[in-house]
């Protein structure tokens, strides 16, 4: 007997769950109906990120590395599905390798970016990197998958939680990635992915007072306006590259804390 294949409903990823948009709207992208997020979904996602962040930041660096590696494992298992949603198998493999690279850095950050500093006084002076908090990411359109992973991975490696606006024209890879994250020990709320119109959503994310940094890699023509909106609470603005892997991509979302510890008291 012929059977009707079960079609997937593409939804948002907020707080570890897959809700439809609060507005109930959808739009068409890559020949699929995709949820069209509203500003209230942005608000909910930031709230989820804020509540998920402290636990992730206080997990041991080793544990964070393990969880990120697990994401790579889960992606490997879905390689062929991902290949159909971006430029192909090679891009997926590079995205998986990127997760592994960042996973390895989770427990090496502090050693490389931190320092002990010589000071002229009876103090032990040292500097340690700390996550900045909630990071908004305006993801680039190209490459659809690798660009997304290249922006999410460094931010969460450093202990931040993220709210991602997926590519407006190619959102399917982002939703597929959400399904991977949901099954790979990444705590709920750590990564939140919204699909929809960039021009509608990005200003709400950039002006949100509870977002600490914003990555405008995919902002294109909106950049100047978003930077202006971000200035209100002195958000850190990051203009990353869609395809890059570097320790400095991680440190872009970190704060450096310097401590003066008295000696001999």
């Amino acid at each position, binding site marked *: 007997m012929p059977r009707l294949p079960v079609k997937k409903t593409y939804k948002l990823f907020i707080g570890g769950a897959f809700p439809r948009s609060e507005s109930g709207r959808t739009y068409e992208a890559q020949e699929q109906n995709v949820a069209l997020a509203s500003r209230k979904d*942005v*608000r909910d996602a*930031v709230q989820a990120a*804020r509540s998920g962040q402290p636990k992730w930041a206080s997990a041991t660096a080793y544990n964070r590395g393990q969880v990120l590696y697990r994401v790579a494992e889960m992606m490997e298992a879905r390689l062929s599905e991902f290949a159909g949603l971006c430029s192909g198998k090679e891009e997926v493999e590079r995205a998986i390798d990127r997760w592994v690279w960042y996973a390895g850095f989770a427990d090496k950050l502090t050693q490389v970016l931190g320092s002990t500093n010589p000071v002229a006084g009876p103090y032990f002076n040292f500097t340690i990197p700390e996550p900045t908090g909630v990071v908004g990411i305006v993801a680039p359109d190209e490459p659809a998958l690798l660009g997304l992973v290249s922006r999410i991975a460094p931010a969460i490696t450093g202990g931040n939680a993220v709210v991602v606006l997926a590519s407006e024209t190619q959102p399917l890879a982002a939703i597929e990635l959400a399904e991977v994250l949901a099954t790979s020990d990444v705590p709920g709320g750590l990564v939140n992915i919204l699909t929809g119109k960039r021009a509608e959503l990005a200003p*709400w994310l950039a*002006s*949100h*007072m*509870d977002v600490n940094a914003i990555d405008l890699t995919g902002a294109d023509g909106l950049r100047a306006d978003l930077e202006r*909106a971000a200035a*209100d609470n002195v958000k850190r603005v990051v203009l990353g590259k869609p395809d890059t892997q570097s320790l400095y991509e991680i440190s872009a979302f970190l704060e450096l804390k310097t401590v003066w510890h008295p000696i001999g008291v």
Partner: protein
Amino acid sequence: MAQAPVLPRGFELPLKQRLPRIGSVDQVAVEARAGELAKRSIKKESKIWALELALRCCDLTTLEGSDTPGKVAALCSKAIRPDPTDPNIPSVAAVCVYPNLIPTAKERLAGTGVKIASVATYFPSGQAPLDVKLRDVEDAVAMGADEIDMVIDRGAFLSGRYATVYEEIVRIKEACGEAHLKVILEVTELGTYDNVRRASLLAMAAGGDFIKTSTGKLPGAATLPVQLVMLEAIRDVHEETGRKVGMKPAGGIRTAKNAIQYLVQVHETLGPDWLTPDLYRIGASSLVNDILMQLRTQRTGFYSGKDYFTND
């Protein structure tokens, strides 16, 4: 000394004879109606109006064993001007504290219009002899409380000694003198909507100026269906006697959205007359910050965060 109001027709003691008049509550229907009313969508100007009303109706509350004069002083500052950056934000209705902290609150709130509510009558259990409770109330009033939040003796109520409960409320109302009396039913311990309705009518008949859902010390506390049952009891008393009794849900109302749902219910059940701090209060602590956050979002046009408001 204030007299307990004359019992309205049908509310005379002993209660046993009038139980059929009290009627019973249709649990399914009450929950369905409360659910329906909670779906109302309030937008734009109405939303801002409702948020400011909710704020004006708040009893900013701290009832911890660890309360200190410092904490209450900070709470009072917040009560007077909830958002230091915006003088247009109204003050809350009252602060609600334990009796020992009344003098601190009185000093801070003098001349501001913010009232001082104090819990009394062996709060939160109410399991003490009547003279202890009366003394508790007298002391609170003497120290300067404008409003007394009493707890009913649930032990007596649940064992069917309604007359004891009634008598106690009457005596405590006398002890209050000029102070307003709010009667806490502690609905979580009453168990059923029928009991909530019965206790509400009892408290009103005995002279309570307000009926209040909970102490805030138990999980569950105020819910929309429970408030609806209590509002309908208030409505029935008003229809029969013309007397207006106030309502105060307390405990578990943490978001502005939730607070607006409570206000919608009041408007739909009792009408706009009750939408004033004189007849409606919300017992809350964390709710205030959420309301402030929503109001600021409406004012500035972008979302705000918890870090921008004071922790009381």
